[in-house]
């Protein structure tokens, strides 16, 4: 048999295979170059970016939990100027598409970031993180209110002709309603899930373990929730969906594709196994070979319910 076709396309971005690296877990790609052949993965999604450099939260920022981890990095990043100057040059050396994840505190900030990134040829697409407090609306998170999400996505949409992926927060009653709002605002694709809000406590000190008190839960512990949400959203919208949450193996990734994902992102797994993204792509290929499937796209949404 010929090698199976693992390529997929997300909003015009051609991926050699469906495995992307999740924002915040893979730095700017460069950090992992020693462990992963970056030419063997689908796309690199960079650490969440803001207009100005952001300090993030005090430490401790991470804590392991059963089957997962909490993080409260607080979106520390170098800001767009340093990103363009210091991080983009490396991304230029890799043929794998780079997708830039970003966030703002106001609709205007989102739009401004999109406008600036629109001009950068190395940026294949944008992933907008809407799990951030909306400063103008008393800190209500953009990602939990369909109207707020709509307005942010709309503003970004109007600021760029590059592909726009919206990353959804799972901390909502109705993920489908959020997905609809983003699709209505002409997002090209949706990615989900971001982290579930959680907390850890140290009995000895009687304090929260994270300096920020709460943090985002990721890793295999959240996979069932992620899989459910991807399935619900993929059924409901016409745009492609990218599955994220606890993916550790090729099997996990393929389960997300059955649930309706066109591609996947690997996050926490990069920490335990820095070569995880490449390995997962390889495991997917092996599965296709062993199952005699010539094209991974056959599996997208192929779940029999």
């Amino acid at each position, binding site marked *: 048999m010929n090698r199976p076709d693992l390529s997929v396309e997300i909003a015009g971005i051609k991926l050699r295979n469906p495995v992307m690296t999740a924002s*915040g*877990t*893979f*730095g700017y790609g460069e*950090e*992992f170059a*020693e*462990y992963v052949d970056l030419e063997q993965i689908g796309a690199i999604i960079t*650490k969440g970016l803001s207009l*100005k*450099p*952001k*300090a*993030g939260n005090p*430490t*401790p*920022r*991470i*804590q*392991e939990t*059963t*089957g*997962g*981890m909490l*993080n409260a*990095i607080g979106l*520390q990043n170098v800001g767009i100027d340093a990103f363009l100057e210091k991080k983009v040059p490396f991304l230029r050396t890799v043929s794998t598409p780079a997708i830039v994840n970003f966030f703002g505190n106001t609709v205007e900030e989102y739009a401004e970031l999109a406008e600036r990134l629109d001009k950068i040829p190395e940026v294949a697409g944008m992933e907008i993180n809407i799990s951030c407090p909306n400063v103008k609306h008393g800190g209500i998170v953009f990602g939990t209110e369909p109207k707020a999400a709509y307005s942010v996505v709309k503003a970004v949409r109007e600021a760029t002709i590059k592909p726009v992926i919206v990353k959804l927060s799972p901390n909502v009653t109705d993920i489908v309603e959020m997905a609809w709002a983003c699709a209505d605002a002409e997002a090209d694709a949706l990615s989900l899930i971001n982290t579930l809000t959680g907390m850890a406590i140290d009995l000895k000190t009687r304090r929260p373990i994270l300096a920020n008190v709460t943090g985002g839960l990721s*890793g*295999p512990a959240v996979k069932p929730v992620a899989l459910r949400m991807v399935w619900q959203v993929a059924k409901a919208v016409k745009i492609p969906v990218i599955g994220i949450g606890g993916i*550790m193996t090729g099997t996990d990734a393929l389960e997300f594709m059955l649930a309706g994902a066109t591609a996947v992102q690997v996050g*926490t797994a*990069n*920490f*335990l*196994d*820095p*070569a995880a993204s490449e390995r997962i792509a390889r495991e997917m290929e092996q599965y296709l070979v062993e199952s005699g499937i010539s094209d991974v796209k056959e599996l997208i949404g192929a779940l029999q319910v």
Partner: protein
Amino acid sequence: MQFRATIISNQEVSPGYFRMRITAPPELAGAQPGQFVMVRVRDAIDPLLRRPFGIFDVGTVLSEYPGCSSATYLELLYKVVGKGTEALSTYHHGDHVDIIAPLGTGFDLGAPEEEKILVGGGIGIAPLYYLAKSLVERSRVRFFLGGRTRDDILCVTEFERLGVETYVATDDGTLGDRGLVTEVMERHIREDGRKKTIYACGPMPMLKAVAEIARQTGTHCQVSLEAYMACGMGACLGCVVKGKDHADETPDYRCVCKDGPVFAFDQLMWV
């Protein structure tokens, strides 16, 4: 570098402290003192994250370890504090662990003519032995070692065998002087006016005291820090400490895993 290591030995050297020798690829012999390794304790998901450990020693043995292409070994010295280290302590000769090494930025060996002062608190001696080994070839080395009780004072003979002058202090006086090791060290620095470099690793209060002494006496000082780590390679930003110029608007965070774990004390914000 990521590699699967075979455990050569794993011995309890003092109650709750283990010394583990594992196989390593030959390239690891070039590791810098102060660099560290990330150990995947189990292939399973519990514990999920890797655990960081200093490089206690790296070397090459004359006889080949059977079934292993290289005779280079890596040694860790660790204290059992939680589930990762507990699991590690159950490993036997012949078992395997997955290692990423060497990571981070190690100690700057400095000018040979300066005396080197090593200060270790408890398990904080872990990266200092390999450092001492590198330093003794070029410089005079004194080692100040503190711990709560005599059980927390490890590997003194190993250091002495290197030709390092060793001073011990314990909180309860069960070994060496009674009191803080930093006080003993401070006395030495103040009494002997020659230029020195301090290398310190241990609990935060000890490092703060050492940094303060270094500041007051104008001594060079490098400290090795600990932090919660997820990735160990500068990607997750979980392990940061504030650099000297840090302000919320113009953040100056340093990654303990990449910019450190060793920092010149005057590069950090000590508040």
